[in-house]
């Protein structure tokens, strides 16, 4: 699975009993891929001493503060391993309207898109 910039994703809402790098405040939240970074070993596997930790693409995902906190015009960008994410496109239609706020912030958040 390769997630292209612009893809809407939902962060996992799971509450694992082991180490993870998905911050709790992002669990279950919908954001947008802005950058596909390098592959890195999955910290959840590394911390548990898995012999061959899965290597996954780490994506920069942009979240609208208004969605995370109910207030604020800023955006929060976090680097998340692929297995923390699922596509949000298949969600029911009501989500699409909620997301309008996060689209207002333009397409210029990724450093690779800067001039």
């Amino acid at each position, binding site marked *: 699975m390769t997630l292209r910039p612009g893809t809407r994703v939902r962060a996992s809402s799971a509450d694992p009993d082991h180490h993870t790098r998905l*911050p709790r405040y992002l669990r279950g939240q919908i954001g947008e891929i802005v*950058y596909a*970074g390098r592959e890195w070993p999955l910290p959840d596997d590394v911390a548990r001493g898995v012999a061959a930790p899965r290597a996954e693409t780490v994506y920069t995902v942009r979240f609208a503060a208004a969605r995370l906190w109910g207030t604020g015009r800023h955006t929060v960008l976090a680097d998340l391993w692929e297995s923390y994410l699922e596509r949000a496109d298949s969600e029911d239609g009501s989500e699409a309207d909620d997301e309008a706020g996060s689209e207002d912030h333009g397409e210029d958040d990724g450093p690779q898109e800067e001039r």
Partner: protein
Amino acid sequence: MTAEPHHHDLPVAARVRRLEERVIAAGLASDGELDETLARFYARATPVNGARLVARAWMDPRFRERLLADGSAAAAELGFGPQVSSYQLRVVANSAQRHNVIVCTLCSCYPVALLGPSPSWYKSLAYRSRTVREPRAVLSEFGLVVPEEVDIAVWDSTAETRYLVLPVRPDGTDGLAEDELVTLITRDGLIGTARV
């Protein structure tokens, strides 16, 4: 930052010391070896390194493009390759429309080689929890008032992907040489808690 507590007073210092004692007890390294390794690393870790990347980007638009496209490769061009080899370096540019600020909510990840040792406040629970939630208020407490019309992007970093902010070149610096520009750039400017 005169009110910062001394490092040895912080709970994290005691925690690090306990970890060091376990490493020593396990025979993995001696106290002297740990000190020497840290001293060697920190001797070369300074915000002057990050400032050199920024000043070069201000002077050379093509370097700026490369820096924003691939921070790790651009850092290597200036000789910092080995120091940033364990993570992906990404550089985010401030502009008239957007201000960037770096935080690590889960711990205190940060490109130490380019910014120097991180300040105590960067590791504090207050900075880590408030910056993602109310960055405008946090920045104003640093004396940086970001106008309402400027968007704020908060980058929550990990150990594998670390960030450096490229500040806007201040007005009135057109006549300065690259070395002089380097002296204008502060650690806080590279984190995003100061304008430059």
